[in-house]
């Protein structure tokens, strides 16, 4: 049993692609072991921006020998054909066997297949395995038509036990020599064994374990101040460093007069720093940076970073001051020159549509906010920090003496940015957010810009998903049909997003969502209540049997074709029918909320079971039959306001 180590050394791979690449490397190598019966299992994958590493254990030295049965002609075949088969197999006719198969007797040849050495097989298979790793954007580096990878491959360590698995990929020969930190440790190649690999690299300022790097960053950052939690930044820093360590720098407190959102954006996204909070929760004039070297004893790195941040903040101050010279209100007209979409028109046109829609949804304040919502697109600050659109508008309205509720609505009108994000916190904000998203959807659908497959350049799915989330969780209740304004494709698109929201975001079962939506989705808050009730009552013993009975009833009604009009005639009822009718009257009481109503419907079970035990709907007497159909139809209609139970998948 042999251990195995693979290290693919490359130039700096983008940090965000590394975890997925490592996962695939592990899976693909495990499949390779299984497909070729090499035994063993992948024990770990890990890496840095410059190395993707895999460990496996328990590989066999060589595959077991095996026998391959090669089928030849049938027993009664022409002797020439049999001789031909023997010749092709490299044996004489006497060496062939006759085997009985389901199709008759056939000549076969049992070929002894010698197991191959694992090292030899791996040498053959690894180049392809490495090259098949998926990366979103790959490149040539040896020239057109050469190998492609995410970044140039510069060294490969491939060890099976204490021996190198020899292969060449992109002109790089595999070996037992790794590489140190770019500028620390030994220059030149680092010979490693499987046992000492991590220790040797650590001596050369490479911490291979991403968990250890992450922990080191977290520990050191925590020791330097009250850093704002930033999991995404932590991941980035973990994978753009090989030997991380944290330092703290500061900036002049006078910059704190700039919007905190801007300062934080510069620190987090442009400079990859952790922002630091003061004791009172406000922003402190400090930052924490993570270097790719162990220490900064002379303070070079701190000073350098402070200088860069100062320049960035000066820029931001310059943008802020320039922007204040022209109030947001005056900038609305400039939106005539800002294209929303070539086929749709300018942001000024979008603004006027948004105003009308916001007025309808949220009244005067919403209309006022919608009028100003896009004006910040003309500011220097938003041109520089695009992700702050909306936020900057809100801040400027407040700074320029606008209404606080309008400022807040503009500030939040891009929300929710994802399904994890919250919706705007005020009704006015929700109205503006709806108006913006709905207008985008209507306009794009009107010019046939409809997302297909993975193509969704205008992020229309996210917009529609945001609309659904705001309607479910917020205080406004226009129906999606109303918002789709008669565009049936848009209505359908909304319905898909509603399903997605309740299934994927809220975790309701597929059939529960179908059942509830089948009887209407005009009011999404009501949909949410009905779904919750179905989910709550579903595990009770009577629910699924009643659902199954409803499905049966529905099939009967469908098969019956045209249904007789009118209400069922009670005088024609036998005892079982009367029982169902009476139970139905009891169950039809609408008080106590959806869960109580559903429990009463589930309580129909004995009466319905008894009915189907006693009664054949298709009675030879048409009058009796029609009356039964009327009874069943009434039952379905009466109890299909919460959900269409026939959609529930029963065991």
């Amino acid at each position, binding site marked *: 049993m042999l251990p195995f180590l693979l290290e693919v050394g490359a*130039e*700096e791979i*983008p*940090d965000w692609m590394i975890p997925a690449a490592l996962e695939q490397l592990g899976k693909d190598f495990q499949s390779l072991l299984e497909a070729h019966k090499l035994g063993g299992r992948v024990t770990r994958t890990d890496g840095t*921006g410059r190395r993707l590493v895999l460990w496996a254990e328990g590989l066999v030295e060589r595959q077991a020998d095996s026998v391959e049965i090669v089928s030849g002609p049938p027993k009664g075949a022409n002797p020439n054909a049999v001789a031909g088969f023997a010749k092709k197999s490299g044996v004489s006719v006497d060496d062939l066997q006759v085997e009985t198969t389901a199709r008759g007797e056939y000549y076969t040849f049992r070929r002894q297949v010698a197991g191959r050495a694992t090292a030899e097989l791996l040498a053959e298979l690894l180049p392809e395995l490495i090259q098949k790793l998926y990366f979103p*954007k790959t*490149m*040539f*580096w*040896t*020239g*057109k038509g050469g190998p492609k990878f995410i*970044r*140039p491959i*510069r060294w490969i360590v491939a060890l099976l036990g204490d021996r190198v698995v020899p292969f060449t990929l992109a*002109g790089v020969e595999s070996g037992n020599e790794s590489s140190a930190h*770019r*500028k*620390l440790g030994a220059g030149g190649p680092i010979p490693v064994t499987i046992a000492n690999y991590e220790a040797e690299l650590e001596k050369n300022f490479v911490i291979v374990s991403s968990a250890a790097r992450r922990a080191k960053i977290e520990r050191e950052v925590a020791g330097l101040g009250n850093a704002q939690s930033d999991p995404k930044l932590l991941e980035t820093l973990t994978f*753009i*460093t090989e030997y991380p360590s944290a330092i703290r720098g500061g900036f002049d407190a006078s910059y704190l007069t700039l919007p905190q959102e801007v300062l934080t954006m510069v620190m987090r996204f442009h*400079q*990859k*720093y952790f922002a630091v909070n003061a004791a009172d929760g406000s922003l402190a004039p400090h930052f924490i*940076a993570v*270097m*790719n*070297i162990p220490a*900064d004893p*002379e303070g*070079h*790195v701190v*000073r*350098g*970073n402070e*200088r*860069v*941040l*100062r*320049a960035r903040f*000066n*820029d931001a101050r*310059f943008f802020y001051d320039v922007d204040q010279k022209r109030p947001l209100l005056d900038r609305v007209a400039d939106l005539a*020159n*800002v*294209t929303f979409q*070539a086929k749709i028109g300018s942001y000024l046109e979008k603004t006027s549509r948004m105003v009308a829609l916001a007025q309808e949804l949220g009244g005067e304040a919403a209309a006022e906010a919608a009028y100003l919502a896009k004006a910040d697109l003309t500011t220097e600050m938003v041109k520089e920090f695009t992700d702050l659109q909306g936020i900057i508008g809100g801040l400027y309205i407040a700074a320029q003496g606008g209404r606080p509720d309008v400022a807040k609505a503009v500030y939040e009108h891009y929300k929710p940015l994802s399904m994890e994000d919250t919706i705007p916190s005020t009704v006015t904000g929700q109205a503006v957010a709806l108006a913006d998203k709905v207008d985008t959807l209507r306009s794009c659908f009107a010019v046939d810009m409809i997302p297909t497959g993975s193509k969704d350049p205008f992020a229309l799915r996210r917009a529609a998903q945001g609309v659904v989330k705001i309607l479910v969780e917020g205080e406004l209740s226009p129906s999606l049909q109303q918002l789709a304004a008669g565009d049936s494709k848009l209505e359908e698109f909304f319905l898909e997003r509603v399903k997605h929201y309740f299934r994927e975001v809220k975790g309701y079962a597929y059939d529960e969502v179908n059942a509830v939506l089948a009887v209407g989705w005009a009011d999404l808050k009501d949909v949410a209540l009905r779904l919750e009730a179905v989910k709550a009552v579903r595990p009770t013993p009577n629910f699924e049997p009643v659902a199954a009975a409803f499905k049966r009833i529905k099939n009967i009604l469908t098969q019956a074709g045209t249904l007789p009009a009118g209400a069922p005639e009670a005088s024609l009822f036998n005892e079982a029918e009367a029982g169902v009718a009476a139970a139905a009257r009891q169950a039809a009481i609408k008080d106590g909320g959806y869960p109580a109503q559903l429990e009463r419907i589930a309580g129909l079970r004995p009466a319905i079971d008894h009915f189907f035990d006693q009664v054949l709907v298709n009675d030879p007497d048409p009058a009796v039959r029609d009356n039964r159909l009327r009874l069943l139809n009434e039952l379905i209609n009466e109890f299909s306001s919460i959900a269409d139970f026939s959609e529930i998948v029963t065991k």
Partner: protein
Amino acid sequence: MDSFQETVFKLKKYWADRGCVIQEPYDIEVGAGTMSPETFLRVLGPKPWRVGYVQPSRRPADGRYGDNPNRLYKHQQLQVILKPTPKDVIDQYLGSLEAIGIDLSKHDLKLEEDNWESPTLGAWGIGWQVMLDGMEITQFTYFQQCGGIDLDLCPAEITYGLERIVSFLQGKESVYDIEWAPGVPYSEVRYFDELQLSVYNFESADVAMLWEALARHEAEAQRLIDQYKTVEDPAEKRRFPLLGAYDQVLKCSNLFNLLDARGAISVTERVGVIARVRKIAVGVAQAWVDQEPFRTMKEVA
């Protein structure tokens, strides 16, 4: 402490020692060192090429009248092309930083994903921005395509932002305080370029004239591209002035940038004008590749 020019000398020497031809800047206005024919045309085709040059790069929209300590209308790029790319290209690059006095064991250097793309040139590449103590000092790109043509050799392009590097080395807060030559500050060398050309670019350039010039240079480039297609005689092909056509492309690109800074191009028009410039850039690149075998043949006696 090295002056600006001393640092430039050292970088040029460093790359000259590694087989680069040290060229002077191209003498037509460009927005980046990439646009010089030393890069744009020489990266095409199978012929190896190593070159280094400083390219003053004009970005009219980035002008700040000489007021902003870190933004310039015209900045200096040191551009290095290594075609084909040596395997130790990054080590060579890091060596150049050490050659100008940066002790990388004491500084934080990171290569952060940054793929470069120029829609007007039909060019893109894969690479990084090189961050030194939190500041971007270099754009490093493996060229993949230029003028819409897949590159045979995928050269490495190393573009140093000289003002940034030198202000880092000299510890200056403002570009204008950099010492260009001993006792001569950057401001003395360049301030009036920044002030007067910001005024010109933002306030006084004649928009109608710029549009007309753009159309004329575009037509001239297109005329040459079309004419090249009709040439059959090898000797005529060899002497056909594609370099003249490319100069027209550069003129157009600069005029586009000027119009943009002047606020004369609406967002809607932008895409269309970019496409016009791209069309002639691609046209010249294709013709240049076609001309390659004729350029390499011996001159007909």
